[in-house]
């Protein structure tokens, strides 16, 4: 009997001790489409600095898995503590489920914390907020700058220089095609890549005009945007994009062909540098980014400048209402966006930082450092690439596809975007 009593007491004490240890360990749940291998490094760095907090990360493909999972979890009140977000429409869809981070951020980084974020990102953070709502519901982690990447080894082989005029771009495309390469790969089945190229073109005709158009300050049928739409069609007609671009996807098809050295140029962004950090085997072009360099879209019309840098937030994170009740969730979010977690992502060349004062470290070549520095120089003056209303972005995607297919004239296509914008603004 005494033995039994001793055994029971021991078990009870052990259970209580284990329970107490369990209770001491805090857990943070995170959902995102952010690449798992890099997130694992960020989490490891965070957990090393905060051994009492465990982070449970769930990776989803962005579409349809991530956005459907978010919708279902929001409807049932079971969102995780921290969620990956894009600025504008995605953040706005979940605004009711998110905590405003203003006070926490001020406490963490000081009263001028928002000034440490690059201007284009800061603007995107409040994109789509109801009038008068100055809260921030997303904390950006990484920024991006859009550009035209080119395979410099192929260019050297064919004796082509990075084009500075539209004629040079056409000549480069022809030389690449004649040489058996895909000139400029456009995944025109993907709305996002079409939007990116159109933004490069539109901002060349009038910097900031797309922002004005989506805010209702300039009609989408303005001459500059019509010209940009005509230039967009020209990229197909002049043989700059590959044949059949409308049925092609940028990922994985285009990216793979580009990495393998079968494509001369591709409109992507600063995130392309991360290819060099993917697990081996890597192609000779991707290895340390040796085969690649970038330029901005040359003037598509006489008198135009080259496209200005266009970009903004690549990915940001929101603190959900559930996460608001878990102090460890903010601790993680802060480190992920502007601390040890961010540094790991930068070291993986995942993209550019959203906050000032960070740069990639570790095993990085001079060539990559030089390209990264050029992007960082351009980021503070980048034009906005994001849309506040998904309906406007969707209308623009359809307009771009219709014009590219030759089924609609640029003016008529842009009139449909104008109609969508008016409807979206009226709904607000």
């Amino acid at each position, binding site marked *: 009997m005494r033995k039994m009593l001793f055994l029971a007491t021991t078990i009870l004490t052990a259970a209580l001790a284990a329970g107490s240890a369990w209770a001491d360990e805090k857990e943070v749940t995170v959902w995102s489409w952010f690449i798992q291998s890099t997130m694992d490094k960020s989490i490891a760095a965070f957990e090393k600095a905060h051994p009492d907090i465990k982070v449970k990360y769930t990776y989803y493909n962005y579409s349809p898995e991530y956005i459907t999972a978010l919708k279902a979890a929001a409807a049932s009140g079971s969102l995780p503590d921290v969620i990956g977000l894009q600025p504008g429409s995605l953040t706005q869809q979940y605004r009711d489920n998110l905590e405003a981070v203003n006070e926490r951020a001020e406490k963490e980084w000081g009263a001028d914390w928002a000034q440490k974020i690059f201007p284009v990102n800061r603007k995107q953070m409040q994109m789509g907020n*109801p009038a008068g709502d100055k809260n921030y519901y997303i904390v950006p982690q990484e920024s991006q700058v859009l550009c035209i990447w080119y395979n410099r080894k192929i260019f050297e082989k064919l004796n082509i220089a990075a084009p500075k005029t539209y004629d040079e771009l056409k000549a480069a495309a022809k030389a690449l095609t004649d040489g058996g390469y895909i000139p400029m790969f456009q995944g025109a089945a993907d709305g996002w890549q079409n939007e990116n190229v159109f933004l490069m073109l539109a901002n060349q005709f009038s910097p900031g005009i797309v922002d004005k158009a989506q805010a209702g300050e300039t009609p989408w049928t303005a001459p500059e945007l019509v010209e940009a739409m005509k230039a967009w069609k020209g990229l197909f007609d002049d043989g700059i994009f590959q044949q059949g671009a409308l049925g092609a996807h940028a990922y994985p098809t285009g990216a793979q062909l580009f990495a393998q050295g079968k494509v001369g140029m591709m409109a992507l962004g600063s995130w392309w540098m991360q290819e060099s950090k993917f697990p081996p085997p890597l192609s000779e072009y991707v290895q340390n980014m040796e085969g690649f360099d970038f330029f901005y879209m040359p003037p598509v019309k006489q008198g135009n400048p080259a496209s200005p840098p266009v970009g903004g937030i690549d990915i940001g994170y929101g603190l959900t209402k559930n996460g608001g009740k878990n102090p460890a969730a903010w601790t993680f979010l802060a480190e992920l966006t502007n601390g040890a977690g961010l540094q790991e992502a930068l070291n993986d060349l995942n993209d550019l930082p959203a906050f000032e004062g960070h740069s990639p470290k570790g095993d990085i070549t001079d060539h990559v450092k030089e390209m990264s520095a050029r992007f960082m120089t351009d980021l503070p003056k980048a034009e906005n690439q994001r849309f506040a209303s998904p309906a406007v972005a969707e209308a623009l995607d359809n307009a771009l596809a219709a014009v590219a297919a030759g089924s609609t004239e640029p003016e008529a296509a842009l009139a449909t975007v104008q109609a969508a914008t008016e409807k979206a603004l009226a709904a607000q």
Partner: protein
Amino acid sequence: MRAEAVRAGPATAIERRPASRTSTLYLFALPATLLFVVFVAYPILWVAGQSLYIRSGSGVSSFAGLANYVTVLGDPTFWIVVRNMLLWGVITIPVQMLIGGLLAYFIERHTHALRGFFRTMFFLPVVTSVSVISLVWVQIYAPYYGIAQEYLKHVGFVMMTSPIGDPKMAIYALILVNIWQWTGFSMLMYIAGIANLPSEVLDAARVDGARGWRLAVYVIVPMLAPATKSLLLLGVIGTLQTFPIVHLMTGGGPNRASEVFGTFIFKQSFVLGDTGSGAALSVIVLVVALVLSLLQIVTLGARLTPAGKERA
């Protein structure tokens, strides 16, 4: 007593069961009923309820009656979707049944040692991931550098555009992929049907002089009617549920030319965040599926297996 009850029919037998036993029988049905209510009935009612609400830009939901239905029916994209769905059903269902039936007939009647091999090969696309299928077919359709182009160039044919990038061709290009993927399923259903054919009927037909084509058309095809009806019913439901292949290959584009109900609902609900019109579309699809299924059962009967009992 027991024998009499059985002879008198099931209704009489149940009437004579004690109340406690009847309650026990209801208890057996309870788990299935609960699962149905929680996972089928409640979500349907929830979606139907959502279809009557509109969410404003500030995030407030308000009762809107049938406004979402009016908006959806007035959207030109809805009618593109209806046209695409009609094309999808009218082309894929008979073509899959025809090719699947022919494959089943030739595999079952004319192959012996390699029967298993052929069955497996033709069924392989059915069990292949849609992601893989879409990636491969995007590459096949790609002009200039695509797989089909590699072969076509030997006969001097150059693909100038990708069929999935042409608004007029996109839906047909997707239909072709769907037929390629699902014909193996029709084949399997017919193989099961052929395997279950009573040999005495076939022998009698042969004795009466039915051979080859006549045996196939006048004896085997009518006797495979249950399999055909099943495929028709599943084909209609499958058509209305079409989503992954379109989402992955064209996303409903270009310019919504290949939009189907699945991608349209997805965009409205998850991309545009318009849950109300997404829910209205879901209810419309549900009603269409219900009406078409009932119509088929009423007109063709509910005998979906050779051993099944004719109820209509």
